């Protein structure tokens, strides 16, 4: 059984099913009549089968080696759910512990605790309290709530003991170690628990448990004075009287035509204005920590912010509206519950009346 290359390829084509047409018919006829070809086909088929088996075995070995038990991990759906639940619980626990660490009374980190312990053992080396704590009253603040974090002694210089930056100092109960992060946390907690002080109070809050020092500053009352209020009576017809009324921002709504009062009428109005002492007004001078300039007026009490208490004030009331003259400038005062900026009177007619 010695087949040439051509016969080999024909047999190949026959076995693979690619031999078609006349070639196939001829080969089938030969296969029927020629024993040698039948032998050749049988031998070739056996060898091809062996090649395929060998390759199949090779691939299976390859797959088996690559996916030996450790490679393929199968988890049943039940176990998947259980594992996912366990993971979720652990995750929640971690998050919870992060948000609410155990022993919240002591916010010191392990490093800090270690440093503190170290310092406690070397009390005689600590510096006097005055050199450690420095409270600065001039620290910045807000209008309504002033929260000042006292300066933290970052580094205590000692000849024998070196203290790291994040270490705090503790000596008896006089020296309070303060950590910036701790202060922020405590502040947030205090704000949340409605322990916020009012704007006009100066509160110094010290938490002994947490050993932090919180100073809350507010606006400062400088002095209180009483001033007479002169009522300005006008004998004008309603249309003219309207022109004298300047309300900010209502004044902007008035039409230009309404604002324009003939000069003659203005003079008459000015002449007919008769200032009379009507009442007294209590004025408080406040120093705002944020250098706010404005006022708060409830009808009886006027709080002035950022106005020099030595300034001479003149109060005039016109048509149930209060005006104050500060340093030659007239301002309109509106009743309000909140703080308001001083609004300057710009209406020339009104200014003429007020200047009388």
């Amino acid at each position: 059984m010695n087949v040439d290359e051509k016969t080999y390829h024909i047999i190949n084509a026959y076995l693979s099913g690619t031999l078609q047409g006349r070639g196939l018919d001829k080969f089938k006829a030969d296969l029927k009549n020629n024993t040698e070809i039948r032998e050749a086909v049988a031998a070739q088929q056996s060898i091809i089968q062996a090649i395929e088996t060998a390759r199949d075995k090779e691939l299976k070995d390859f797959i088996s080696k690559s996916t030996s038990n450790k490679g393929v991990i199968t988890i049943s759906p039940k176990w998947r759910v259980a594992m996912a639940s366990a993971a979720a619980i652990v995750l929640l626990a971690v998050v919870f512990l992060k948000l609410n660490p155990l022993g919240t009374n002591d916010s010191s980190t392990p490093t800090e605790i270690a440093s503190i312990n170290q310092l406690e053992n070397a009390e005689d080396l600590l510096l006097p309290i005055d050199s450690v704590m420095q409270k600065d009253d001039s620290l910045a603040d807000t209008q309504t709530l002033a929260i000042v974090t006292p300066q933290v002694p970052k580094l205590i210089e000692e000849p024998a003991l070196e203290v790291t930056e994040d270490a705090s100092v503790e000596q008896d109960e006089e020296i309070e170690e303060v950590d910036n992060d701790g202060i922020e946390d405590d502040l947030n907690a205090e704000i949340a628990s409605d322990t916020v002080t009012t704007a006009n109070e100066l509160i110094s809050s010290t938490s002994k448990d947490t050993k932090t020092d919180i100073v809350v500053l507010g606006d400062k009352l400088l002095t209180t004075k009483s001033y007479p209020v002169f009522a300005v009576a006008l004998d004008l017809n309603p249309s003219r009287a309207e022109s004298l009324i300047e309300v900010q921002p209502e004044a902007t709504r008035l039409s230009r035509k309404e604002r324009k009062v003939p000069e003659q009428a203005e003079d008459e109005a000015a002449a007919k204005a008769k200032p009379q002492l009507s009442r007294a007004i209590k004025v408080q001078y406040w120093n705002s920590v944020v250098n706010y300039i404005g006022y708060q007026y409830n009808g009886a009490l006027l709080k002035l912010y950022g106005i020099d208490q030595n300034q001479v004030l003149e109060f005039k009331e016109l048509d149930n509206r209060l005006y104050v003259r500060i340093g030659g400038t007239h301002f309109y005062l509106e009743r309000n519950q909140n703080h308001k900026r001083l609004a300057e009177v710009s209406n020339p007619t009104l200014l003429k009346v007020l200047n009388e």
Partner: protein
Amino acid sequence: MLIYMYKQHYTMVKNFILKNSGDEDAVDDILQDTVIAVWKNANKTNFLLRSKLSTYIMAIAKNLWYKELKKKTKFKLVDETQKMDLGSEEMNLNMDQSIIVKMVQEMDETCRRLLSYFYFDGFSTKLIADKLNFANADTVKSKKYQCFKKLQSSVLNKYKKEDLI
């Protein structure tokens, strides 16, 4: 590729076989056969995947497993197309396939790979030329004949001529 397909569909095939009177060993065998079948089919020039790969793999795995079950129940379907080659099959039975397989495995690397690529993987002669660094497809054809002839000679030396008849 084979490993990826195997790992990716292991659970799916396993669940199916275990639910259909199979065991863990059967899972490995069926999945290996499935993956190899997919590999062989995918290398065919006219292969076109019309469904999801997982669906295709599952279909093959199911077919293979049902065949396996039929074998177990000693029920065999007679393939009409195989009747034609009945004579040659009878001849094949006279040869110890494992010995020929061993001969194939002992062939030199190039010949073994060339014949495997052609007969098993179904690679085209051009692709084989690229993979095995042959000049062109014709070179592959003649080299294939030489390798096959070599293997055939080894087989004939091992068996008497009468064994093949």
